[in-house]
């Protein structure tokens, strides 16, 4: 029996199908979850996909945070349930306070869409354990509000606890503090990432297959339990 990984669809989600496809290619069963229900359908992990939930009105992710499904996810995540937030999903995780900081407008104001090189710095999280430390990967980055911001105290905490999971390499796309592309919570079960691993799982359509490792990592974690 394969593991069940939920992919949440909010109004305005765009990358839920690609995320579900990545889950399936990693060898798990993708289970569609709907924002208006609080039913997690017995999934063992959840992906919050990219897109523009609720039109990005108010602030990115601010309204999605209060969707019924998020109540269930926040409660479960606080008890170690694995959650990966990609792009808009990362913004939702910050608005939910499952992750510290916030994502703000790219410093150059442009919506970016490019293949971005990253360095994976923390390979102990539920979603990055399949990488080797300091591995360089290339996956797409596409967003208008990807600049990771937080106060100095939070930044020092993230750095000293090794909770920066990925950093932008060679190019500063958005003005994120310390070139942060992704972070995790203390336990490592919740990970937020601005670039899109679900778009880099096949060479036909992506710049690499590096993204698949995020999805196989969580399966490895679940097997090890």
């Amino acid at each position, binding site marked *: 029996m394969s593991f069940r990984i939920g992919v949440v669809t909010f109004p305005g989600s765009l990358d839920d199908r690609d995320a579900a496809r990545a889950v399936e290619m990693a060898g798990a069963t993708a289970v569609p979850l709907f924002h208006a229900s609080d039913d997690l359908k017995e999934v063992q992990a959840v992906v919050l996909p990219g897109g523009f939930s609720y039109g990005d009105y*108010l602030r990115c992710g601010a309204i999605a945070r209060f969707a019924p499904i998020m109540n269930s996810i926040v409660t479960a995540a606080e008890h170690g349930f694995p959650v990966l937030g990609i792009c808009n999903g990362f913004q939702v995780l910050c*608005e939910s306070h499952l992750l510290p900081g916030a994502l*703000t407008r790219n*410093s150059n104001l442009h919506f970016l869409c490019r293949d971005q090189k990253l360095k994976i710095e923390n390979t102990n999280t539920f979603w990055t354990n399949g990488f080797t430390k300091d591995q360089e990967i290339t996956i797409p980055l596409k967003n208008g509000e990807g600049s990771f911001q937080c106060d100095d105290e939070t930044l020092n905490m993230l750095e000293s606890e090794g909770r920066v999971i990925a950093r932008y390499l060679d190019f500063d796309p958005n003005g994120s503090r310390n070139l942060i592309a992704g972070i995790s919570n203390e336990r490592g079960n919740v990970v937020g990432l601005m670039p899109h691993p679900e778009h880099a799982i096949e060479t036909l359509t992506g710049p690499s297959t590096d993204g698949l490792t995020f999805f196989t990592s969580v399966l490895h974690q679940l097997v090890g339990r």
Partner: protein
Amino acid sequence: MATIIVEVMLKPEILDPQGQAVASALPRLGFTFAKSVRQGKRFEITMDGDPTPAELAEIEKAAETLLSNPVIETYVVKVIK
């Protein structure tokens, strides 16, 4: 009927590229007075009658949880009668 104004601004230490873009557009139009520009949001909320202290506390709570993100923003609540 009262109108509640909630003004939300990015904290001073948070980069505001939108404000910077406005600041750089002003001199192009011949407006040379601006040293800097910060851009924020303003919410106008109407309600029947004047807010009670309990309702004002509710408004503060809404401003803190939904209308602003305390990680990057501050807010001010004003009541116009």
